[in-house]
């Protein structure tokens, strides 16, 4: 098993599995006609997934514009908890089709906020693509239109996802199993 920074990392989803899912998802996304498609990557965890998925979208015949947004989620109480925009997109989303890309869908709080925000700003349609779906953690109803993998409730790293900024560079999604 790979050892990184003195930790044993057990791969959960290999680079090959991820590449295959990205190709399939891109083909599914390209199936329906898109109106001035804008892809928005939700930073920071999704940067590698977004980089691979947009290139798969190109291979599937799409030519989207690409933007980035940074959100932060903290606060007291489940219902009143706020999501804040740390870095907004620059583009106008009015009457456009939007594809939000995130690494992982858990409670759904930030993705729900991002989707509602784009609709408030006049987007024509907002779809969500996530690499991992931790359905067991969902609060309320929110489903991603495109899901790479259903993910068991492990704390995962790699392929953009971190612990204290580390392990983002791993080409696979894995679980930290302890010291090597």
């Amino acid at each position, binding site marked *: 098993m790979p050892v990184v920074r003195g*930790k044993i990392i057990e791969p959960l989803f290999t680079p090959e599995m991820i590449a295959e899912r990205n190709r399939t998802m891109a083909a599914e996304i390209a199936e329906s006609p898109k109106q001035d498609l804008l892809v928005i990557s939700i930073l*920071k*965890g999704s940067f590698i997934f977004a980089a691979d998925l947009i290139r798969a979208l190109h291979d599937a015949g799409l030519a989207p514009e690409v933007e980035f947004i940074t959100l*932060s*989620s*903290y*606060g*007291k*109480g*489940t219902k009143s*908890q706020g999501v804040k925009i*740390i870095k907004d997109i620059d583009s106008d989303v009015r009457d456009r089709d939007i594809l939000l890309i995130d*690494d*992982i869908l*858990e*409670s759904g*709080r*930030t993705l729900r906020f991002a989707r509602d925000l784009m609709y408030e700003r006049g987007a024509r349609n907002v779809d969500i693509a996530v690499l991992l779906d931790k359905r*067991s*953690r969902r*609060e309320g109803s929110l489903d991603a239109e495109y899901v790479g993998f259903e993910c068991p*409730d*492990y*704390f995962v790293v790699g392929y953009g*996802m*971190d*612990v*204290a*900024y*580390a392990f983002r560079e791993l080409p696979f999604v894995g*679980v*930290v*199993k*302890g*010291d090597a």
Partner: protein
Amino acid sequence: MARILIAEDEDTLRRFVARALAMDGHDIVEAADGAEALEHIEAEAFDLLLSDIRMPVMDGIALATATADLTPAMPILLMTGYAEQRERAEPLMRIVVDVVEKPFTLPQIRQAVADALMAKAA
């Protein structure tokens, strides 16, 4: 990115830590005492509990014990500025990853959180 529950009755400190960890990309839920925190733990899943020891209603020791019963896999990190509170936590070291001493700097609490998250799967 982790989903972290912060239990701390001191509003200024809780918000400071919450904002800093949220800026690191974590999804943060805040509770002002142990009972409020336990309600969240019963209803939602978290990757880490970061709790003060001395709190009203239900303190961090009782919260840690109840949390370990409910969700044995969740790492628990306690914080305290009092030596005698730290001693009270010593019998809990089997269920608690660490006790962080207050006052701490942001890099210190970030590191403690990172270590606790990595200890989870180990």
